[in-house]
């Protein structure tokens, strides 16, 4: 599976159970990355995409909302994580879950927001390689950076 997350300058994801930020053009970009594949997320995240029905028509992506979505995703599917809590708890119970993560797409806001939930997935260089990096302007953010990481062959988390 490939996990997708949005983070601030300090790897923050959420504050007080709310996402730090959102951006319509970022979602559009995310859907393009997942085009033709399944994109899993929880109901809280799904509510964002319900606003963007026109976007899903342009870049057809099957969005599936479920609370334990990372357990359902197949090898080539994408999982949009707005918090790591459920994922890490599931990984403790099923350690092979971490090994199933073959790619990571990080969207950086290039801003500092308040945070109490952080992206703690370890992208150490000996196991992960940054394969792509792209900057673009969002609908309300001047500069968003998309980073694509791929697991190095033969490496495990």
């Amino acid at each position, binding site marked *: 599976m490939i996990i997708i997350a949005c983070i601030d*300058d*300090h*790897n923050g994801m959420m*504050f*007080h159970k*709310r996402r*730090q*930020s*959102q*951006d*319509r053009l970022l979602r559009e970009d995310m859907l393009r990355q997942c085009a033709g594949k399944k994109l899993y997320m929880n109901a809280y995240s799904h509510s964002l995409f319900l606003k963007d029905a026109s976007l899903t028509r342009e870049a057809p992506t099957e969005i599936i909302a479920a609370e334990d979505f990372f357990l359902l995703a197949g090898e080539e599917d994408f999982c949009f994580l707005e918090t790591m809590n459920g994922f890490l708890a599931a990984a403790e119970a099923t350690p092979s879950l971490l090994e199933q993560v073959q790619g990571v797409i990080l969207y950086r*806001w290039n*801003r*500092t*927001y*308040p*945070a109490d939930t*952080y992206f*703690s997935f*370890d992208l*150490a*260089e*000996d196991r992960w390689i940054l394969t792509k990096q792209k900057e673009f302007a969002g*609908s*309300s*953010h001047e500069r968003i950076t998309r980073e694509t990481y791929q697991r190095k062959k033969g490496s495990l988390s």
Partner: protein
Amino acid sequence: MKRNKKFWSALLLLLCCLAFAIYTRLMPEDAKAPTGANDTPFSDETGQTGKNEDADSLNRPGGASTLPNQTNASSLSLEDIPAYTGEPYVILQDNLPAFTEEDLTEASFEIYNDLDHLGRCTSAYANVGIDLMPTEKRGSISQVKPTGWQSTTYDIVDGKYLYNRCHLIGYQLSGENANERNLITGTRYLNIEGMLPFENMVADYVKETENHVLYRVTPIFEENNLVASGVQIEAYSVEDKGEGICFHVFAYNVQPGITIDYSTGRSSLTQTKDSDSEQTIEGEIRGNSRSKIYHCPGQAAYEDMAESKNLVIFETEQDAIDAGYRRAHK
């Protein structure tokens, strides 16, 4: 007879005027109709004419009686606030701001309350909407000298200057320039680490959704100090009833490594005591320049970091914090 009737009518009118004058003079300030700068968001005296002159009559059901209650909503004393422990802000009252249902309005406004008898800022309150946000770069604010203002520099402070003129309602939210009722003497740390993240979050939310956010900042002073101990920040998104933005925090007006005399604003480098050095963690602090996270000896990823090409070494945790890093959770 006719002349008599005129006399009694005039006397009655005079008595009515006299009674009204006495009534308005004796009535408590907070019960008066919202005609003063403190009560109405759209007063000329706030310097904010023209932005939302119609809003008072558009979306404020009930008119003046629904004006937010400034004095009761955010009463807080320093005794309610935990001491600074290294984090730039602390959550208050489960992160729930003290706004009421009556405060919710879809009309933008901004209120900058009067300075107190010592010339200190009291509070600023806005309903931030896209129409309130600036369309041009900020102008000069250097002519304002908030209470306790000192122009002091230190090498250990980012940008050298210990103090910034801190906007209570940030410029990016309300476009307010040199308003003495909106500027306090705040450390660089308060401005950048304590307040800016919250302003960023609110500004980006409003820009993206075009919703409104009730946003109130109250500086808290200890007794007659001229420099605030910190600021209380409350925010709540209106249209989605707090689903997007909801917080209530206190940001500390401190600067790591600097000791501040809050009564005057004077400052000095903090003296390191021998006992402090005894408590210092043995071994270097290893930071990751990519994640901006640092690891202390004994932490989970500490040994792995030794080989990282993103390794940055700090002598102390404070050095890492000052460089914008945060401690790893494990």
